[in-house]
C-alpha cells in the first residue's frame, strides 16, 4: 500500500505589495489541512518565486496580489516557469482582482483566482481537488528523489 505524500505548496507575495494578511492566513490554513507550505515572505520578484518553487520542488504555486499589478505579475510567473521547463507546476492565486480580469488570467494559464470573501475552507477544498503531487507515479513511488 502506498501512502500518498502530502502536497507541497509555495505561497508567495510577488511585487512590492506588502499586504500579507491574506497570504499568511492561506499559508496557515493549508498547513493546518496537512499540507507542506513554503512561504516566500515579501517583495519577491517573479524570478525569485520561480527559483524557490523549483528548488523546493513544490506541487503548486499560490500567489497573493493586492496591488493591482496582477495582469503583469501572474503572466510573468507563468512565462518564467515555461522558460525553465516547469510549466507543469500549476499556479493559482488571489487578491483584489476585478471580476473582468479573471477570464484573461485564466486564459493565460492561472488555474483559479480567489477574490475577497473566499473562505479558507473553499480554498483548501479546491487545492485538494485540483492539485496533485507532481511527478508522483503510483507504480514507481520510490523513484522520486
Amino acid at each position: 500500500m502506498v501512502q500518498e505524500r502530502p502536497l507541497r505548496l509555495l505561497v508567495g507575495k510577488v511585487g512590492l505589495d506588502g499586504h500579507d494578511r491574506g497570504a499568511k492566513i492561506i499559508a496557515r490554513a493549508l498547513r493546518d489541512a496537512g499540507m507542506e507550505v513554503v512561504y516566500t515572505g515579501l517583495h519577491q520578484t517573479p524570478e525569485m518565486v520561480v527559483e524557490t518553487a523549483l528548488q523546493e520542488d513544490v506541487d503548486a504555486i499560490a500567489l497573493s496580489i493586492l496591488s493591482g499589478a496582477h495582469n503583469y505579475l501572474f503572466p510573468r510567473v507563468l512565462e518564467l516557469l515555461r522558460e525553465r521547463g516547469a510549466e507543469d507546476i500549476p499556479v493559482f492565486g488571489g487578491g483584489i482582482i476585478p471580476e473582468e480580469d479573471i477570464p484573461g488570467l485564466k486564459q493565460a494559464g492561472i488555474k483559479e483566482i480567489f477574490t475577497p470573501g473566499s473562505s479558507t475552507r473553499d480554498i483548501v477544498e479546491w487545492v485538494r481537488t485540483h492539485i496533485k503531487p507532481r511527478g508522483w507515479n503510483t507504480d514507481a513511488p520510490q523513484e522520486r528523489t
Partner: protein
Amino acid sequence: MEGSSKPGAVRGARSKREWEQRTLREALRHQPERPDSFTTVSGMPIERLYTPEDLGPDWSYDARLGYPGEYPFTRGIHATMYRGRLWTMRQFAGFGTARETNARFRYLLQQGQTGLSVAFDLPTLMGRDSDDPLARGEVGREGVAIDTLADMETLFESIPLDRVSTSMTINAPAAVIFCMYLAVAEKQGVPLAKLRGTLQNDILKEYIAQKEWIYPPRPSLRIITDLMAFCARHVPLWNTISISGYHIREAGSTAVQELAFTLADGLTYVQAGIEAGLDVDAFAPRLSFFFNSHNDFFEEIAKFRAARRMWARFMRERFGAQNPRSWMLRFHTQTAGCSLTAQQPYNNIVRVTVQALAAILGGTQSLHTNSLDETLALPSEQAVTIALRTQQILAEESGVAHTVDPLGGSYFVEALTDRMEREALDYIERIEAMGGMVAAIEAGFPQREIAEAAYRYQREVDEGRKTIVGVNRYRMDEEARPEILRIGPEVERLQLERLAQVKAARDERRVQRALAALQQAARGEENLLGPMLECVKAYATVGEICSSLVPVFGTYQEATVL
C-alpha cells in the same frame, strides 16, 4: 414586605445581583437569549447589562473623564468639539500620473472637501523610481507615481499650499517627499511657516503591519528625529508623524492590539526625540495619530476614548510634558477597508456609515470614509462622492455633532473604555519588558500577535461564528456590480517618458554633488533634511535619494513569521 401588598406597586432591584435573581431569571425562562456569542468583533466578551457597579468602586468622574478640552481628555480634546468646528473631511486620493490626481484633488475641493490626502503608488512608497525593475506593473496603480520634484509640481498645480492642509501617506521615503513639498511651496512663494498638513512618517508600523520599508528601524528613527527637529524650527504647523494603528488593524489585529501597538510606537518616537536632544514640548504637540474604525461600534468608541486618556497620562506623567498640547491625542480616522465586502458591494455604504459614526462619537479630528467599491479597485468618482456625502449627512442631518461626547457616562461605554485601557496597558508593559518596540519588532512579537488574531478571526468567519452579511449569511447569486475605476497601462509608459525627460533636462553634476553631500551628512550627525532638500531641488529622483543612504544605513530584511 412593605409596599408589596399594594396592587400595581413597582419595586425595583437595588443591585445587579438582585435584579438578576428577581427579574432576569424569570425573563430568561420565558425567552432564552440568542445562541450567539456576545463578543466584540475582536473577541472581547460583552455583558448583558452595565450598571454603575461595573465601573468599580474607584471610578470617579474627575479622574477618569474630566471635562472636554481638559486633562485627561477622555471626553475630547476641544471644549466645544464639533459645535466649534466639524471634523475635517479628508478623502485619501491618488492614482495614475500627477496630472490625473491633481484633477481629482481639484474636484474634491470643489465638492466641499476641506483637506487633501495624497495616496502614492507602491514604487514611490518603497522609495523606488518608476523605471526600477521591481516597479514593473505597479506604476500609478495604487496611488500617484512621484519620481522627482517635477511630478510634485504638477500634483499641486493651481492649489495654493497656504490655503489647504495636506496629508501625505508616505513612510520610508517620507522625508524625501516632504522636501519636495517644501520645494513646491517655495516655488509658489508660500512661507514654510504657513504650511499645514501631516506626514504619515510612521516607520514602526511598517515593520509591524504594512511592510513598506527601506532601512532597518534604528537609522529610520534617526531620519524621523531629524525631521521632527527641522519642523520644530522651520515648519511649526506641520504634523510630523501620524502614528498609525490603521494598518495594524487592517493586518488583522484586535482593537486592543491596535491601541496598544500604536501607543507603544508613539512612546518610541517621543523617547527617540528626547534622546536626540529635543525638548518634549517642542515636538510632541505636532505628533498626531491615525486609527481604524471597524464594525464593532462601541468597541471602537471605547478605543478612541481610551487612547486619548492613555496618551495624556503617558505624556504628562512619564515624559513630564508641560504644554497641554503635548498631552492631547489628536487623531485621523479611516473606516476599515478590511471590513468591506466584494459581495453585494452596496452594503458597504451602510458599514461605512456605522464606522464613521463611531469615529465621530469617539471624537475624531478628521475622517476618511471608504468607498463602496474598495474591495474591487480604487474608488470611482461616484463611489467617492457617496462616501463624502455620508460624512456630510452625519455632520449636518443626524444631530450627533450638536453636543460634546454624547456617550460619556454610559455605563457600558465607560466600562469598555476602562477595559480597553487596562488590556492595552498590559501589552505595552510586555513590550517594554522586551526592551521596547524596536526590540519587540526585531523579535517578531507584534507581527506574531497580529497574524494570530487575523487567523482566529478568519476561522470564526469561515465557521460561521461571526456573521458577515452577504459573505457567510444572506448570500445572493446575482449581484449588482458597480462601475470601477481602471488604471490603463499607458500610465506606466507616460510616467517613464516623463522621468526620462526630467533626467535628460537636469544638471547631472549638481545631482551627483547633492547626493554625495547627503551621504556624507548621513555618516555624521548633521540633520539630513537640509542636504535632502538640495537633492530634491536638483531634481534627483526618489530612488536615487533613498538608495544614496543605503551604503550608510543598510536595508531591512524581515524574519518571516507565519
